[in-house]
């Protein structure tokens, strides 16, 4: 058969099938290869054998929808009856084939057949891909396929499947032997095999073996190769503390101290004594080899050994007395590790009548904000609450600075200050590092800035077109980022009405976001199951993290800037290394949505709060060490060690916050029937 004929056959086949885009792409490619005459020969890409099959397929089988059902059924029973050793690898192939069979049938208009196929085999995939199946189930006409983002992305991208050589051979052999062209075609078109020599991998690391590549794996790889500077800011307060505390002898403490060098008013938790002060200072000392420190002021001092980066944003300055108090906190910080777990103070919201959408705690834990579905934002001053309930607060008052006008702020009968202004449910609230501003985002697509000193609304930022799911102050204040249903994340500064940057690229809602410790990056988590890292200065996407199986609900950045944790709807928490873009360990333990994550200030512990009414503490240092040792061993199970599970009575945990002194604050709503 001559090449031209083949091409013609391919063209007719494509036309017949209605693969317009493929056809166009094909033609384009032809044009490119043969600039002069489109039909001139030597299309070396088409293997004559495949063409043969395609031809026979197009002539013999036409649009026979039964082919799909039968072909898939056979493939399935073959895979299930294969040798146990290779079975789990071969089973991985089934899901991509299944969804594409379904979509092909839909695309050709065989709705009834598609439904039958779907219903007869959906149980197989229910466990792993339940949510995706729910989405696909609704697709009932070719137009839906194009409209639906999920189907679209499936069509556009390839599945990546890791498989061992022998399994791969088995599969090919089967496909050739049975002449099931439909299956062969589907597999060729939509699956990208990463064949590895040797034995099949163990079943346990299933999580990573079947991945959907967004805009093609290459693009992701490309993006993930960009250089990022995850080091901490030079000249952080912590750094300065280190220098000041140089008089204290130091000992071994590897991990960097993060500094959210922030200012803050009524700091001072009375509970954490100053006893740890000494050990603290030591730790500050040798952050050799690691990054440390963080948000900084523009005022300068010297350099440290750790990788340091220059701030790309102009950073606001901190008042001297606030800086002072932060330094004081850093000196008094409790050193946490797997052996020294934090104290947790839990703020429980009661009588919310199912109306609380979010809770936020200021950095020192003295203020708690709740965003409600009735569009109100309520702020509690815990210092005052404490006075009523005999909480040890006198020190808080004494230690707070004269500038702290919060004490006199909400003197009404109510225990809270009510902020009203939004016209839709409030989905997120965040305190500025100093605790004097609050930002809230709402379904009315606006973000509002409130002053806790004046108890009033200062600014209403309009820019998003759809509900704003999340808003976060940068670690230095002044700048903030928001994420929305309109699939963008935006960077703002407090003094401008318009966003400074718009980050677009996610395929679905951007549900949560988090600033990097050095303020040069933000991370966003989305309903498209990916996490992206963006450069704030350029607005470019610099990393894509793929691996979650459901929507991302929470993110946290380690204070040393090296790692990121993300939690999803299924209760999985994943730990990522920013530099490489790889998942270093999935943390399995939660059984329901992980609403919140927080790293302790020196980065040794990760706390996660979930809808299953528990707070879990994870050992970060152990898991990262583990990673280093078995770095290149594929298939090793490196799970983060779960140190402790702390159940609440019946309170899903909405928010977690480590104070600068490493006291952990948690907040949640008492819910009777969940």
């Amino acid at each position, binding site marked *: 058969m001559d090449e031209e004929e083949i091409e013609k056959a391919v063209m007719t086949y494509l036309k017949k099938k209605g693969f317009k885009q493929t056809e166009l792409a094909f033609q384009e490619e032809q044009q490119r290869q043969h600039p002069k005459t489109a039909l001139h020969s030597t299309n070396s890409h088409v293997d004559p054998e495949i063409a043969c099959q395609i031809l026979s397929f197009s002539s013999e089988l036409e649009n026979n929808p039964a082919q799909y059902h039968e072909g898939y059924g056979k493939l399935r029973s073959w895979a299930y009856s294969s040798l146990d050793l290779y079975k789990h690898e071969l089973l991985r192939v089934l899901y991509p084939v299944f969804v594409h069979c379904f979509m092909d049938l839909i695309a050709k208009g065989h709705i009834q057949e598609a439904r039958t196929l779907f219903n007869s085999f959906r149980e197989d995939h229910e466990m792993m891909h339940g949510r995706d199946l729910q989405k696909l189930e*609704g697709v009932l006409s070719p137009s839906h396929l194009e409209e639906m983002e999920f189907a679209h992305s499936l069509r556009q991208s390839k599945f990546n499947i890791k498989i061992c050589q022998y399994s791969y051979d088995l599969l090919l052999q089967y496909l050739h032997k049975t002449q099931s062209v439909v299956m062969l075609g589907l597999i060729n078109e939509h699956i990208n095999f990463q064949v590895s020599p040797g034995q099949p991998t163990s079943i346990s690391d299933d999580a990573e073996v079947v991945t959907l590549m967004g805009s093609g794996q290459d693009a992701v790889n490309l993006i993930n190769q960009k250089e990022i500077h995850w080091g901490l800011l030079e000249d952080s307060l912590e750094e300065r503390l280190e220098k000041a505390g140089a008089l204290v002898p130091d000992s071994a403490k590897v991990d960097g101290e993060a500094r959210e060098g922030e200012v803050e008013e009524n700091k001072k938790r009375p509970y954490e004594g100053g006893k740890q002060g000494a050990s603290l200072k030591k730790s500050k000392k040798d952050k050799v080899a690691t990054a440390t420190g963080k948000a900084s002021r523009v005022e300068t001092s010297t350099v440290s050994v750790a990788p340091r980066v220059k701030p790309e944003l102009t950073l606001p300055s901190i008042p001297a007395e606030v800086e002072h108090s932060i330094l004081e906190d850093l000196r008094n910080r409790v050193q946490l590790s797997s052996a020294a777990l934090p*104290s947790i103070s839990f703020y429980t919201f009661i009588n919310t009548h199912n109306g609380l959408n979010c809770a936020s705690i200021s950095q020192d834990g003295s203020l708690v904000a709740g965003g409600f579905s009735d569009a109100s934002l309520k702020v509690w001053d815990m210092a005052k609450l404490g006075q009523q309930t005999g909480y040890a607060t006198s020190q808080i008052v004494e230690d707070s600075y004269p500038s702290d006008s919060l004490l006199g702020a909400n003197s009404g009968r109510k225990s809270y200050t009510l902020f009203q202004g939004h016209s839709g449910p409030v989905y997120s609230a965040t305190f500025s590092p100093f605790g004097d501003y609050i930002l809230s985002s709402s379904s009315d697509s606006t973000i509002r800035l409130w002053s806790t000193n004046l108890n009033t609304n200062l600014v209403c930022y309009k820019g998003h077109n759809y509900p704003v799911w999340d808003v976060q102050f940068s670690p230095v204040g002044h700048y903030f980022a928001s994420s929305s249903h309109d699939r963008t994340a935006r960077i703002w500064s407090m003094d401008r009405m318009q966003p400074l940057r718009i980050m677009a690229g996610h395929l679905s809602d951007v549900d949560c976001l988090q600033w990097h410790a050095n303020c040069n990056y933000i991370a966003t988590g989305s309903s498209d199951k990916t996490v992206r890292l963006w450069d704030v200065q350029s607005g470019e996407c610099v990393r894509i993290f793929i691996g979650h199986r459901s929507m991302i609900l929470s993110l946290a950045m380690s204070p040393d800037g090296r790692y990121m944790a993300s939690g999803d709807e299924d209760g999985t928490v994943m730990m990522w290394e920013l530099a490489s873009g790889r998942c270093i360990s999935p943390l399995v333990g939660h059984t329901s949505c992980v609403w919140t994550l927080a790293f302790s200030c020196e980065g040794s512990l990760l706390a996660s709060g979930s809808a299953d009414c528990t707070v879990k503490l994870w050992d970060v240092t152990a898991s990262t060490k583990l990673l280093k040792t078995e770095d290149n061993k594929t298939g090793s199970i490196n799970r983060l060690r779960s140190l402790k599970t702390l159940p609440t009575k019946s309170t899903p945990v909405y928010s977690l916050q480590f104070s600068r002194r490493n006291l952990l604050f948690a907040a949640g709503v008492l819910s009777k029937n969940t």
Partner: protein
Amino acid sequence: MSIVPKETIEVTAQSIGINNLSPDAALALAPDVEYRLREIMQEAIKCMRHSKRNLLTTEDVDSALRLRNVEPIYGFASGDPLRFRRALGHRDLFYVDDKDVDFKDVIEAPLPKAPLDCSVVCHWLAIEGVQPAIPENAPVEVIRAPSETKLPEQKEDGLPVDIRLPVKHVLSRELQLYFDKITELVVSRSDSVLFKEALASLATDSGLHPLVPYFTCFIADEVSHGLSNFPLLFALMRLVWSLLQNPHIHIEPYLHQLMPSVVTCLVAKRLGNRLADNHWELRDFTATVVASICKRFSHVYNNLQTRLTKTLLHAFLDPKRAITQHYGAIQGLAALGPNVVRLLVVPNLETYLRLLEPEMLLEKQKNEMKRHEAWRVYGALLSAAGQSIYDRLKMFPSMPSPPASTVWKTNFRIIHSCSANKRRTPADLLEEQPPAEKIGNDGALVPLSNNSSDMETDKDPAALGDSSAGRSSPKDIRESHSERRQKRDQLEKRILRTPALLNQAWKDDLDSGRLLLLLFELFGESIFPFIPSPEMAFFL
């Protein structure tokens, strides 16, 4: 092929005024409607997640509709859960029950209570990684597997192994000390003041619950080994009593272990090995313990009382058992209440008394000790029967008669005339009763004179069981006997007549009349102190 049938589309079209929708259009629309519905639900789920809930509400659906620029559906926003009704004739078709509300009702209804305002409370979830045991935290399990330290190590090598360790009951040091102290007191120093304090503590302290299994075990052990040690047994029973009093202890699960020991102390053949031991007192006390257990737990274990009475009755009716055992059984039954006595003891009284009779008589039973025991039993029976009849009678409305107890002693006639006048004027018979009866009655009030009853039984074989007659002074015997005959006749007559005189509501009275009669036959006048005077008068 779509879950939305085309009929639904047609109906919807009609409802908005499109009457000529072509079937093809409906068919084409159906899948799209389904797709849109699913899309909206997916958006609603997103909204639900951002409200940090796991329960989809109507508000979420409204938000989703707003996201899509669709007008939300009104009327479902109220916080109340929707009430669904099943459509008649369809198995799985439901609709929301939307009742018409009258404005008047709404306006006139009182304002509902204002909901509580939202607030924040604060507590320690953990202090340096350890959860404090405070009410705000989830209860820390008392029973937990030891060696938690081992588990993390196993996890480290990547193999999460779930090893079930045998459950161990952890008892705090303080509780152990407490237990040791109490047991020591029980065993060795049960007469000290300290023991009284300990009993008070047992009866009131909360937090003793973990010790209950140990105490039950201890009691069972000591009772089975220490039957000859009277002070110990008494101390143990007081311990049981205190435990029962403690409102913080949940003793039901251990009752089955406790009951055998308690019942042993009630009906054992010998309790204590010395003559001085007042085992009667112990039996009396144990009877009250048993009764209180029955009263408190009979609703939990509904066969508790049945089983207990069966055991006791068995002991009571077995002639081979020692007389002490009979005593315990009678006391136990008596403590269970008058009804139990009436139903179980009284029917057997006659036979039993026949058995008891020889034991009580000087000439038949030479052993002073044994005779004493028999009289004890007799006393117990009498008081049990008396209690039961008293209980029975006092249920009736008291009769308007003068305070009787004094009167009828001094002037019997007045009573007769009184009662005759007021209650049954036709019963003039009473008036004719010989004054001699007074003597008999007075005799009945004389404290038991146990040495005098011998002759009577010989003379009147028919009334053999009626030992009480012997308590009248010997010279009265004949007289009183004939009187009694007479009186019985009268009573019977009257009882027969009552239905004619009184209405049906007095049926019970009739029963108790018979009961009284029986008791009177068996015990003679000694039953009288248990009878409220008006009734007394009435029956006489």
